[in-house]
């Protein structure tokens, strides 16, 4: 291992859902460990993480927890002035005339604005768990050395703002990478182009956008490449199920962003079978 080499941070994203982000992440990790690299796969799809399933793993004991500070009312201090309810931009504070304010946790993003604005200091922060971080060890041993670690973020179900869970999972993964002197860290993102995806991509050196040759694939590729450009992350395209559908739409978007299709993965019954049985980890990429 060359310890002088800098850790490479790669985002694996795509815009559209179900194009094969997790599959590509696992296949890519496999390729890297065969080259003798130490790899951390960090599943940042905290609403629906799947990498552990693809690797045939289970999420058992959590290695870390993610907290947010939700508001708690001290009725003794509250003057029912209504400022907190008027301030909350998520409409998460309801106050009937002459009554105490009620905090609706389902709508609360834990931003803390109400605590700042309360003139009586009647609102205090209360820590609550919003997610867990899992570390799966003992994977993929090559040359008598452990080469692959999986780190998974999992948001509490029903949580609205999942970006902070992604951010904490990444922080955990980056610290762990330092500890084990990893060569690569792959951030597998959720579908879409917003909060949780942005949190996952931020700080990456490079990104792969995984897509499929359909008009939907092309439309969403346009959005995700736009996002990567805004975040100043160079991105290349991986075209999954490349021989089905129509590549022209994809080509147009690729030219628009002056990038290229790095790899085409042809339709493969074998791959689909392996995926549907949770055995992707056994397949070779190249």
């Amino acid at each position: 291992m060359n310890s002088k080499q800098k850790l490479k941070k790669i985002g694996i994203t795509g815009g559209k859902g179900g194009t094969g982000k997790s599959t590509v992440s696992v296949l890519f990790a496999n390729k890297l460990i065969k080259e003798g690299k130490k790899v951390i796969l960090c599943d940042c799809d905290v609403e629906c993480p799947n990498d552990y399933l693809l690797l045939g793993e289970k999420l058992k004991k959590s290695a870390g927890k993610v907290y947010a500070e939700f508001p708690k009312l001290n009725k003794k201090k509250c003057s029912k002035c209504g400022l907190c309810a008027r301030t909350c931009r998520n409409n998460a504070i309801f106050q009937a005339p002459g009554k105490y304010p009620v905090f609706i946790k389902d709508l609360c993003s834990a931003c803390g604005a109400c605590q700042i604005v309360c003139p009586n200091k009647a609102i205090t922060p209360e820590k609550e768990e919003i997610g867990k971080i899992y570390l799966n060890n003992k994977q993929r041993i090559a040359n008598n050395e452990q080469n692959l670690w999986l780190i998974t973020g999992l948001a509490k179900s029903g949580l609205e703002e999942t970006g902070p869970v992604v951010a904490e999972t990444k922080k955990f993964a980056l610290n762990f990478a330092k500890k084990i002197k990893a060569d690569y860290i792959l951030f597998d993102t959720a579908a879409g182009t917003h909060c949780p995806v942005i949190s996952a991509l931020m700080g990456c050196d490079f990104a792969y956008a995984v897509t499929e040759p359909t008009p939907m694939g092309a439309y969403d590729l346009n959005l995700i490449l736009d996002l990567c450009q805004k975040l100043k992350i160079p991105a290349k395209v991986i075209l999954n199920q490349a021989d089905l559908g129509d590549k022209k739409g994809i080509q147009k978007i690729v030219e628009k962003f002056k990038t290229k299709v790095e790899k085409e993965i042809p339709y493969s019954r074998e791959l689909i079978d392996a995926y549907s049985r949770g055995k992707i980890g056994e397949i070779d990429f190249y």
Partner: protein
Amino acid sequence: MIPKRITIISGKGGVGKSMLASALAMLFAQNKNLPRSTRQNLDSFRIKKVVAVDCDVDAPNLAIWLGEPENWKETKKISVSEKPVIDNSKLTQKEAKQCAEKCRFNALGVEKGMLKLNPFLCEGCGACELFCPKGVIKMRPVKNGEIKIKKTKYNFPLVSGQLFPGETGSGKVVTEIKREAERFKYDLMIIDSAPGTGCPVIASLQDSNFAILVTEPTPSGFSDLKRVLKVVNHFNISWGLVINKWDINPRLSSKIEKWAGRKLLGKISYDKKVFKAIADFKPILETDLKVKKEIKEIFRGLNQLWQDR
């Protein structure tokens, strides 16, 4: 009775939400044109007006599944959030640091003594404006999304929308889109949700009377289905399940069928030709694929289900 608002969700992406949503919208809208003999016993013949709503504001694709991505009748720019504008000249370094510490989303930092915003992390909550001891942080609205409306070839309106890449507030765009859709007179609203379980999905599900969950027989599909079901149950919404691509793993499919029991609405087979059809902008209902028959079967089943209640 037919529920007024149906939301189609899945947890996992790419399992067939938009395909199913587009086909069901077309079937319900066409229904009134069917001869009486075919529509007998179907409660849905009372459905006269359908409105289709694409609530996947991160990656809106329902228009493509309806065969026509362009030709929007109306596009409106909207603002769903505000971002702080900072006048650094009046802030001391210490104050800048205090402001940055107040941001729960790590969107504020101090660089060379100046308070700096990372717009990609900002949630637009306004805590910094409220806190700033000098009052030099001001929240200003940003135009960060759009709503698009059109009349489809199939005689019902489609309301779609988008949050621009890199912006915050997808849940709020969803709420705006649904509000816009409500301006149409409708008997049935069909809502296509984003994947995942977070804010846009929750906003799509809110006020729904029925949820159609779509899954595929893969460990990921099943796991994500159970995750999103927790959200559905949280809102106490009744639901049914469709298994798409059931034949890629018949064993797991039958396990999911057993798990679903009477909630199962139907199964759709895997067909590579769906790719080709959609690449040619051909809606599923205008093909001769087996998938089309299977979706029609699900449509009939839904009518039956709601008839009996």
